[in-house]
């Protein structure tokens, strides 16, 4: 570059068209710090205040869609709903603690004509019952599901509730096996009452079951004893009941 050129350039120096050294670095730093602080504030704020956290231990809530079909014309004569098959009801059901195995609600037979409203309700309920293990595997968990309390703490928070739940399990388990002969006269059925004293061991086995009060009908007495026998073993009693159930037992009062 010649000196003349340099001179000519210096004349242009005040022009905006010539490059000048501006303090860009300062602004950049301020901007970066500002952004970082902003996002950090959002992060801290959202962590502290906003949004639902995902609890990985929470039980999944399962919802199934069940097609109700078109309601049957009330002017038509009723149809007998197809009864659930015995094998179907007894099919093994996945255990509740394994949520990764999805349970499906059996659909009502698509070929079956939709029954009356009340019947359909029963059919649906029976479908749900089947998935929750009614008539299926008789474990503590399944019975718990059948007899769960709607207003209870899902984790159970007191010995009383635990005890009530246990008695509920016993009751449900025995009721499933509570078969009584049709030969018992109808007028007699109203008055029958039998008590059975049952001692339950700590693993849930029946140590002793004896008739404490006879109904006066031997057939009925036999039926209730058979129901206890067929329903056993029961789930292991909770800690605080263990001793009482083993030594003093529980009285089961049967009525038809």
């Amino acid at each position: 570059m010649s000196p003349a050129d340099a001179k000519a350039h210096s004349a242009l120096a005040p022009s905006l068209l010539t490059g000048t050294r501006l303090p860009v670095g300062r602004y950049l730093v301020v901007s970066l710090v500002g952004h970082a602080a902003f996002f950090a504030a959002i992060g801290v704020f959202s962590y502290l205040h906003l949004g639902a956290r995902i609890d990985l231990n929470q039980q999944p809530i399962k919802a199934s869609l069940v097609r109700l079909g078109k309601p049957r014309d009330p002017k038509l004569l009723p149809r007998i709903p197809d009864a659930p098959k015995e094998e179907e009801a007894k099919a093994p059901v996945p255990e509740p603690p394994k949520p990764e195995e999805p349970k499906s609600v059996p659909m009502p037979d698509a070929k079956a004509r939709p029954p009356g409203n009340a019947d359909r309700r029963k059919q649906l309920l029976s479908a749900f019952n089947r998935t929750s293990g009614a008539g299926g595997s008789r474990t503590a968990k399944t019975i718990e599901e059948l007899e769960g309390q709607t207003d209870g703490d899902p984790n159970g928070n007191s010995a009383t509730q635990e005890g009530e739940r246990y008695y509920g399990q016993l009751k449900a388990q025995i009721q499933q096996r509570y078969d009584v002969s049709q030969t018992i006269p109808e007028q007699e059925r109203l008055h029958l009452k039998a008590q059975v004293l049952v001692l339950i061991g700590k693993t849930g086995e029946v140590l002793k079951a004896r008739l404490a009060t006879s109904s006066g009908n031997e057939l009925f007495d036999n039926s209730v004893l058979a129901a206890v026998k067929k329903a056993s073993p029961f789930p292991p009693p909770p800690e605080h009941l263990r001793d009482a159930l083993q030594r003093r037992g529980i009285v089961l009062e049967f009525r038809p």
Partner: protein
Amino acid sequence: MILLGARRATAQVPVLEISGANFRPMPLAVAAPQSADDNARSKSAELDAALMFDLSASGIFQVLDRKSFLARVSEGLTASAINFARWADIGADGLVKTQLASEGQKIRAELHFFSVGTGKEEFKLTDSAADRDVRRLAHSLADALYRRLTREPGPFQSHLAFVRRTAQGKEVWVADWDGRNGQLAAGGPNVLNVLPALIPDGSGVAFTTYRTGRPMIFVQRSGGAAVPLVKSDHMATGIAFSPDAKRIAYSLAVGESTQIWVAQADGSGAKQLTDTPYFINTSPSWSPDGKRLAFVSNQGGSPQIYVMSADGGGIRRLTFQGNYNQTPDWSPRGDLIAFTARDERRAFDLFTVNVESGKITRLTQDQGDNEEPTFSPNGRLLIFASHRTGTSRLFVMNSDGSNQLPLPMDSGAYHTPDWGR
């Protein structure tokens, strides 16, 4: 839900109340009869067949298949001789053992009933009958067993009237409840005899006959000849006797309408009950107290079941579902009326309607056409005609539609059963 004295557990034993029993037919093992002599042995198969069918149809037993039996055939008839564990193993709760012996011209039967659970003989029934009446002996034993257990009368010594269709016409027969031991009550070449009604006192059977060309109601009393019962110049059909056998109800077709009439049992004192010109009222059936009648009427546009008092007042339509409901039969227990209806698939099936609530319950479905139900005298069973096997045959079932079994009748075409005492 969970009923507890459990809170008192610290002081005393908790009490848990359990109800909601499942009532089920009693699993019953019926051992083949044992015979004391050759004559008795020759009759035992027939007695056995009749007894087995009665118990199977009773609705209170689930009669177990003999093929599953584990006990020795020669096992004795006393509790000490019976290995109850073997009967318990096949699921039996009750065990029946019978022994037959000849006594002159009679067969004597002893029926022992054991409770398998307790291993005890509960009771023993003894009866005898003439050699040729072993089926009736079986029915008598079945009735006694039914009554002993349920304290209700059994239906097995009752009678059944029905129509048998032949190449020449239609005959009215009267038989034992199971359709066996039948006797021809009305026949004749090229004559239609239909709609039989047993007289509740057991003295005979009335029916509608076309022997003169137009329908007339005749009665056939035991030992006599069939004679006209309803004397009218109009077409008379569909007779029904009141439960006390003192009155009759029937339909008379006059001009374009058909009306229901009642009269004394001998046909006198006839009185018209319904009065709906241009409409058809037919198929009367008495309530067990004899104070009301169920009948079919098309006065609402389609044939439906109606009830009215036996003097013709208080007519009330009972069925509002379906558009072709007919042949009502009022249960001897009073609560239900069984009827035939044609559904939307044009299948004829059996239903009951609750007289008080009007609730309709279906009894048969997807088993061919089923029609003309008739209640057993104790109201627990129904006999009806079914086309499920191709020809019309008679079946029996529980009044809730369960346990449908064909009657053990000779082959033929049968319909319109009437189950009486």
